[in-house]
C-alpha cells in the first residue's frame, strides 16, 4: 500500500517547452504533492488533507498497562493503518530497550563519578531511540542529536566511541561514513539539512537510501527545521523526520514553542504526510516508523513523525528540573514507562520468560561494564591532534603553530626532568 508519487510525470509547464538537453530530471521539483493527492484519493478514498494530516489520535498499540490497545482505539483510520510487528522484531526491540535503559543509567552514574563531562540522558525515551535504529536498513543513514546516544549505539556504533564526545577527548569518536550515522549534533536541527543532502545525493545516483533525521520538540522552532522539511518536500527526497517531543526544551515547555494542534500537523504545510505516535510504545513506534521508511523508500517523498514522550530526568547533569516542573508531573510519566509496558506485554503473550529476561539483563550488564571499563581508562590526548585535522593538509600557518606548541611542550618536559634530577 504505497502512496507513490510519480514525481517525474509532471514537469513544470515552462520546462516542457524547452527542447533537448534542458529536459527536467530527478532533482527538479515536480508537483509531487498533487500526485500524492491523487494517489491518496484513489487508494484510500480520502482527501489529500486527510492523507497529509496526522490521524485524529496518536497511534498506540500497547497501552501503559502492557495490554494490547483494542484495534478501534489504536488511532488508525483509512490511509493511516498499521499492522503489528512480528514477534522476533518485538523481542529484539525489547532487548535494546533494556540495554538502552542500562546505558542511560550507567552514563549518568559515570558523570556523577567525574568520568564524563556531561551526558544528556534519554531515560524514558528509550522506545524512540530503539525504534529509530531498528526501522533502518544497512544502507540507510541516521542523523542524531546529542540526546540520541542510545539510538547511535543501537545502530551498531561502539558504546565507548559514542561517548567520546561527552567524555571530552574529542568532538566525535566514530566514523559517520562507516556507520552511516551523522555526528551527534548539538546545534539544533542543523543536522536535518545534512540528512536532506545525503538523501539528495543518493537519489541522484539512483540509490534507495532512506535517511532518518532526528530532532526534539524545542528544535522545531529553529529555522533549519523549516528549511529542511521544505527542501526535502520540494526535491521529493526519502527523508523521515522524527521528532521526539519530550515536552521540554531544557526548561521551556512545548506550549511556549508552538501552538500548533500537534507538531505532526506541521507536515501538511510542506506538502508531506505527518503522523503522531505514542513515544513510549515501542510497538507503535516500530509500526509507524517502519511504514514511514517503507513509503519513503518506495518514492512517496518525506514524512514527519512526532513521538509523544517525556524527558524523565533533567536536561543534563548541569540542569535542575525541579525549578520548572512538578514531581507529580514526572510521576504521571513513570506509569507510562516504555520498558515496563513492553515487559508486561511480551510476558503476557508468552514471548518473554525468566530465562530470556535473564539473558537480556546479562547483555545489558555487559554493555554497562564495557562503558565503565572504557571510560575509566585514561586515554592520553595528543596535543598535536589540534592541528592535524583542521584541513586535509595543514596550512603553513598551522604548521608554525604546531611547531610552537611542540617547542613549548619540549621545554616543559625538559624542565620537569631537570626538576626530577
Amino acid at each position, binding site marked *: 500500500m504505497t502512496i507513490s508519487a510519480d514525481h517525474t510525470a509532471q514537469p513544470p509547464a515552462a520546462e516542457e517547452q524547452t527542447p533537448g538537453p534542458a529536459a527536467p530530471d*530527478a*532533482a527538479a521539483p515536480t508537483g509531487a504533492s498533487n500526485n500524492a493527492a491523487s494517489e491518496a484519493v484513489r487508494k484510500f478514498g480520502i482527501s489529500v488533507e486527510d492523507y497529509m494530516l496526522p490521524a485524529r489520535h496518536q497511534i498506540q498499540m500497547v497501552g501503559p498497562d502492557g495490554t494490547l490497545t483494542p484495534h478501534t482505539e489504536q488511532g488508525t483510520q483509512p490511509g493511516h493503518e498499521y499492522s503489528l510487528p512480528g514477534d522476533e522484531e518485538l523481542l529484539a526491540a525489547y532487548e535494546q530497550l533494556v540495554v538502552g535503559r542500562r546505558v542511560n543509567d550507567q552514563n549518568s552514574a559515570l558523570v556523577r563519578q567525574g568520568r564524563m563531562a556531561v551526558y544528556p540522558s534519554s531515560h524514558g525515551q528509550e522506545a524512540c531511540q530503539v525504534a529509530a535504529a531498528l526501522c533502518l536498513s544497512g544502507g540507510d543513514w541516521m542523523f542524531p542529536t546529542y540526546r540520541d546516544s542510545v539510538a547511535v549505539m543501537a545502530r551498531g556504533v561502539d558504546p565507548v566511541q559514542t561517548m567520546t564526545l561527552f567524555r571530552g577527548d574529542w568532538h566525535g569518536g566514530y566514523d559517520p561514513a562507516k556507520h552511516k550515522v551523522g*555526528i551527534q549534533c548539538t546545534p539544533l536541527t542543523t543536522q536535518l*539539512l*545534512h540528512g536532506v*543532502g*545525503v538523501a539528495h*545525493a543518493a537519489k541522484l545516483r*539512483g540509490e534507495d537510501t532512506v535517511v532518518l533525521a532526528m530532532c526534539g520538540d524545542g528544535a522545531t522552532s529553529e529555522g533549519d527545521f523549516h528549511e529542511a522539511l521544505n527542501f526535502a518536500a520540494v526535491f521529493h527526497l526519502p527523508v523521515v523526520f522524527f521528532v521526539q517531543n519530550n515536552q521540554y526544551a531544557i526548561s521551556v515547555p512545548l506550549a511556549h514553542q508552538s501552538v500548533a494542534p500537534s507538531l505532526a500537523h506541521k507536515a501538511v504545510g510542506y506538502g508531506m504526510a505527518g503522523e503522531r505516535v505514542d513515544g513510549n510504545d515501542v510497538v507503535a513506534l516500530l509500526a509507524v516508523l517502519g511504514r514511514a521508511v517503507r513509503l519513503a523508500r518506495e518514492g512517496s517523498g518525506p514524512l514527519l513523525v512526532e513521538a509523544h514522550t517525556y524527558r524523565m530526568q533533567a536536561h543534563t547533569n548541569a540542569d535542575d528540573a525541579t525549578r520548572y516542573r512538578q514531581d507529580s508531573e514526572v510521576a504521571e510519566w513513570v506509569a507510562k514507562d516504555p520498558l515496563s509496558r513492553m515487559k508486561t506485554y511480551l510476558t503476557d503473550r508468552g514471548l518473554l520468560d525468566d530465562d530470556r529476561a535473564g539473558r537480556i539483563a546479562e547483555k545489558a550488564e555487559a554493555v554497562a561494564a564495557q562503558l565503565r571499563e572504557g571510560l575509566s581508562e585514561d586515554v592520553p590526548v595528543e596535543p598535536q591532534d589540534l592541528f592535524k585535522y583542521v584541513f586535509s593538509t595543514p596550512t*603553513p600557518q598551522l604548521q608554525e603553530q604546531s611547531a610552537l606548541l611542540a617547542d613549548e611542550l619540549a621545554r616543559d618536559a625538559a624542565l620537569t626532568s631537570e626538576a626530577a634530577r
Partner: protein
Amino acid sequence: MSPTITTSSEANGNVSAATARAAATAAAVAEQSGPQTITLAKALNTAMADAMHADPSVLVFGEDVGMLGGVFRITDGLTKTFGQSRCFDTPLAESGIVGMAVGMAMNGMRPVIEMQFDAFAYPAFEQIVSHVAKMHNRTKGAVKLPMVIRVPYAGGIGGVEHHCDSSEAYYAHTAGLKVYTPATVADGYRMLREAIDSHDPVMFMEPKKLYWSKDQVDLDALRAEHAENTERGTSSEGRAAVARPGTDATLIAYGPSVPTALAAAAAAAEEGRSLEVVDVRSIVPFDDETVCASVRKTGRAVVIAEAHGFASVASEIVARVQERCFHHLAAPIRRVTGFDVPFPAPKLEHYYLPGVDRILDAVDDLQWED
C-alpha cells in the same frame, strides 16, 4: 584530470545521463582555441562547466542559478548543458542550500553552491561556521567536505544596501575554511578549478565589480595547465602572486582592490616611484612567503582592502608582515581600507571605497625623507 571522488554508481541514474549530454554539448560548443578576450564571468562559468564535464559528482545549485543562469549569469547555460540534476534552483533559503550541500558532500558529491549576494549568505552563517568549517576536524578527517561556496562580494557596482558587503573576514576568522578571491580573468578560471578540486571547503569570494572586466586569456592553455597541475600535484593553490614588479614599496591587495592598486602603481610610476603590487589571491591559507619576500625587498608596504579596517583581513596582513619583516621596514605599514561604517548608499560609495588617490597619499606617508 581524474575526478578525486567518484560517485558509487556512475553507471546508472540521472547524473551519468546528464554527463553524456554534457559531453555532446561541450563538443558542439568547443571554444575557439588560442588567446581570446573574455570576462571574469565567462572564466568562472567555463571553470564550472569544465569541472562538471570532468567529474559527474560536481553539482551546482542555489537561487536562480538554473534557467536564469544566476543574477550575475555566472551559471549561464549549465542547466541547459548538464540537465537539472546537475545545475538546479533551490527554495529561497541560504541555510538550506549550505546545509544540503554539507550532506551531499558527505555522500560523495562535490557541490558548488552560489550565495546570491554577500549579505544574503548570513542566514547560512551557522551552517558554515559550525558545520562546513568543523566537520573534518570533529571527525578526525573521516568526513571531508569538498564543497565550494561562491559569494559575489564587495561594492563598486552602485548596489543598494545588503548587496555590497565585504564579508571575507568572517570566514577567514573561522578555522577550517579556505578563503580564495580571484582578481584576474585567468585566476577566475584557475582558482575556481582548484577550489572545486580541493578536499576542504572553500569560500570563493568573487569581486562582483570585476565580473565584467575583460582580459585576453587562452582557455585551452589554462585547461592544460590545470590538467598538468592535477597530474603532478602542483598548483598555485594558496599562493600569492606579484601582479606588478617594483622596487620602492609594496602594495598588498586582494580581490576588488587589486585593479585599484595596479592603477595606483601606474600613476606612481609616472611620478618616478616604483611600486610592487602583490595579489594575495588566497586569504586562507595565507602566503607569508611571497608577501614577506616583497616587503623585505622594498622595505615599505601599504595594505589595501575594501572591507572595514577594524579587526579585518588587512589588519591581519599588517600584523603578520610586521612580525616577520620588522627589521626590513623603513616605515610603519599603512592600511587603506573602507571606513568603519556600514557600506554606504550608492551615491556615497565612492567616498568609502579605497581609491588611487587615497592609496598614493598613504604611499607618500611612508617616511621617504631619509
